[in-house]
Structure formats: structure tokens, C-alpha cells
């Protein structure tokens, strides 16, 4: 067994050396959300950034909760997520030194066309959620501590539904796309970010039933990680990305992205 362990260490060392020799250091790792990746935004803006700065951006797309965790552990150089409350806490706890608004879009409430809970006539997003709970119509929740999941839980709260549960409320613990697939399969209601919805193909009977309330606002923020906590990260390069996102060029690149003729992200850096 000792021999085996020694072999393993040797193999890891050789593999590590090979990768290190190949590695081009002009890149950063960005922990971000599935909505930005799946909608194709990064494929549109990263080439522009690379052209201007020569820096490549490697995107690891996960839920917002997991993106925070990756940032905390120092496994990415910078973080771009959508949970303003969580982001501010992240800064307060010393994991990030700076947070900036980058862009926004909105959440939409999606459901089967026949709309059994009649939410298309709701006066507000909170009312729509209250109607779903009232009718006990099937609702699929992300249940994965993502930005969308956190926003959904806040909506239930404002709808006066404490701790939604029961057979109608299905907590999936899945990404946005998987949750939409499930909702399509069981004709359930679901809250999704607009970008993922527009990029989503397997809609079956699902359609947008409620949209436009200010409460459904979805803000994305960029977080600069704390160099004192993780001195080995590429803070210089990460800062260039951060600044570029907020610059005129970056904001224009975001605004110019269209999918199926729709603008999905609206820049709002200060």
C-alpha cells in the first residue's frame, strides 16, 4: 500500500507539472450563475474582453449559493451572481472587498397555459404566489440555495405564505433548466429568470403567466475577492474584468447581446 501511495503521489506530481507547463497564466476563473452561462451571455461578451485585454475568462457556472462557496474557498478569482442581500453579507464577512451592480433583468412566473390558479389576473407578484398556494396548484421550486431560489422564498414570504409545503410544493434541488424540464413534465408553476426561460427549448405547455412587477427585479453583482484571504489568486486580472464590466465597453457589450431577438440583460453600473 505504501508503494501504491508513492506511485499516486508521483503521478499527481507529473500530471501537475505537465499542466503547469501548459498553463497560460493570462486567464481568470469566474464563478457565476447558470442563467448567465446557459443564456449565452458569456459567449458574447468574453471574446470582446479578451480582445481588449488579452485575458481569457474561464466560467464555472453553478447556483449562487455554490458560487459563494467557491469564492469563500478561493477556488475562483472573481464572482458574478444575483443575490444582492447575500452579496452584501459576503462583503460584510470579509470574503470580498467590493461589490458593484453590473446588470439586471427580471424573474417571470411561468405555468401551464390553462392557468388553474388564475395568476394571469393577479394584481401583483405576491398576489400571484398567494393564488398558487390558495389553489394548491403544483409548483416546482429550485430548492438549491441559488439566487433564484432565494428570491422565490422571499416572494412566498411577501405573499403571506409561511413555509410553503404540501404535495403541491415540489422542492427539486436542481438547476434552473432541470427545474423547467420538471415543471414542463408535470405542468407545474415555476419562477425563473427571464434569460434562462428565453434560452429554454423544452417548454411544452408552459408559458409566461405573470411578469412586470418591480418585486421580480433581478440584479446581478460582481464581487472582488479579498486579497488578504487568498493572496495567491489573480487579483490584478480579476480587477481588470471587474472594471471592464462596469466600463462603457463592458456595459455596451452586455446591452448588445440578443437571443431570439430579445435583450436579456440590461446594464446598470453606476
Amino acid at each position, binding site marked *: 500500500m505504501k508503494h*501504491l501511495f508513492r*506511485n*499516486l503521489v508521483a*503521478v*499527481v506530481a507529473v*500530471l*501537475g507539472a*505537465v*499542466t*503547469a507547463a501548459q*498553463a497560460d497564466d493570462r486567464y481568470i*476563473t469566474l464563478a457565476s450563475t*447558470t442563467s448567465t452561462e*446557459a443564456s449565452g451571455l*458569456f*459567449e458574447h461578451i468574453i471574446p470582446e474582453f479578451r480582445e481588449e485585454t488579452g485575458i481569457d475568462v*474561464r*466560467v*464555472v*457556472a453553478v447556483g449562487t449559493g455554490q458560487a459563494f462557496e467557491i469564492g*469563500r*474557498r*478561493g*477556488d475562483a478569482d472573481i464572482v458574478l451572481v444575483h443575490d444582492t442581500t447575500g452579496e452584501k453579507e459576503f462583503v460584510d464577512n470579509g470574503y470580498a472587498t467590493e461589490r458593484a451592480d453590473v446588470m439586471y433583468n427580471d424573474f417571470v412566473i411561468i405555468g401551464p397555459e390553462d392557468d388553474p390558479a388564475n395568476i394571469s389576473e393577479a394584481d401583483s407578484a405576491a398576489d400571484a404566489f398567494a393564488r398558487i398556494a390558495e389553489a394548491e396548484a403544483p409548483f416546482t421550486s429550485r430548492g438549491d440555495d441559488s439566487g433564484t431560489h432565494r428570491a422565490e422564498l422571499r416572494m412566498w414570504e411577501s405573499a403571506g405564505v409561511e413555509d410553503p409545503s404540501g404535495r403541491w410544493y415540489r422542492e427539486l434541488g436542481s*438547476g*434552473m*433548466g*432541470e427545474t*423547467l*424540464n420538471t415543471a*414542463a413534465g408535470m405542468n407545474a408553476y415555476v419562477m425563473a429568470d427571464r434569460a434562462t426561460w428565453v*434560452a*429554454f*427549448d*423544452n*417548454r411544452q405547455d408552459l408559458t409566461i403567466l405573470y411578469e412586470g412587477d418591480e418585486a421580480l427585479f433581478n440584479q446581478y453583482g460582481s464581487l472582488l475577492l479579498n486579497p488578504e484571504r*487568498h493572496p*495567491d*489568486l489573480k487579483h490584478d486580472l480579476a480587477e481588470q474584468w471587474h472594471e471592464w464590466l462596469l466600463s462603457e465597453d463592458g456595459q455596451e457589450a452586455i446591452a448588445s447581446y440578443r437571443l431570439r431577438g430579445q435583450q436579456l440583460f440590461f446594464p446598470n453600473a453606476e
Partner: protein
Amino acid sequence: MDNAFQTALRLILEMDPELLGIVTLSLRVSLTAVVVASIIALPVGAAIALWQFPGRGVVVTILNALMGLPPVVAGLMVYMTLSRAGPLGELGLLFTPTAMVIAQVILILPIVAALSRQIVEELWGEYREQLQSLGVSRLRAIPTLLWDARFSLVTVVLAGFGRASAEVGAVLIVGGNIQGFTRVMTTAIALETNKGNLPLALGLGIILLLLVATVNGVAYVVGEAARRRLG
């Protein structure tokens, strides 16, 4: 389904460079993993087959049980180890193809070791008296036994390759599914499923199956040729 087959065919005919990159990386990662794992696991399996030592039954049982190691768990273990906050964080290997190879090696190693242990042990039963009468030590017997069992062991190695190329849980966690860098066939399939692009996802799945079938086919043809030549 028709749609998926058409998509698969179109993807193959178009030779899309991004898809080619994904296919190449899939093969590179899984083949490297299977080679590394086999170099370690074949001798280890043979050694366990030949030597009697206290606790051998426990080792064999653990090895057999580890054949069912969930990929997500293997991925998490590697993630925690390679994470900057982990013991090997300084190597900066997380979210690289190397990390994916390491995770797959951990997945395949028990499979190759456990199955080769079984095969070599059976062969040892047949050869034992003859080899010992010739004065061949156990250590010397290992290469002979592995060589004589090579046709069965090819199947073992292919089982390992199948496991590596089919799993998504480990490579997704340690690789991060980064476009153009750590995206492989299985993580690409998961991503397209998430986008609700089911025909494309299934089309990619068909291509993956064809790839694995090709690797197996090549192994079969080479094996048959060798067998015939040796009479």
C-alpha cells in the same frame, strides 16, 4: 428520437470544431485515467491475489465495495483535496483536466484492481504448482500471470474505460464544465439538457455511445488478431 439521430448525424458531418474539442478532451481524460489506473491497479490486484496476509478478506471486500463508489463522492473528495482551502490547494489543479483525470483514476482504480484480483487468483490456482516447481517466486510470477490473463484483463480495462467515459458527477464538480477547457461529452449533455435542448443532448449522447463503441471495437479487433497469431 428521430430528431436526436438527425442531430447526431448533422453534428458528425459538420465536424464542428467545438464538438471536436469536446470529443478530444473526453477521450484524452478518460484514456489517460484508464492508463494511469491500470498501471497501478493491475499489479496491486495481482499482488492481492497471490499473497496471503492478515486482513486480506477485509481488503478484498473494501476493494469490491469501492467498485460502487458514487462519482459525485469521488468528485467531492478530489474537490476538497484540490481546493485552495484544501491540502493540495497550492498546486492550483482544481477546474483543470488534470483534476478530472485524478477523479476518474479514483473511480476506475477499484474496478480494475478488484476484477484483476479475481482473474489472477483463478489463474494462480491453475499455475501455482507448475510455477513453484520451476522455482519462480510470487513476485516473478506476477508479470507471467498478468501476461497470460491479458485477454480477460483487456475486458477489465475496458470496463474501467466505460465507467470513466460515462460518468458526469465527478468531472462536473472538479472540472467545472468550463467551455473550451474542461467541457467533456457528459457535462455537455447535462448542460444541453438544462437548456431544454433535448434533441441536441440526446444527439451528443449518441455520439458518445459511438465513441465508446469504437474504442471497444478497436480493442476487440486488436485482441482477436493477437489471439489468432498466437494460435
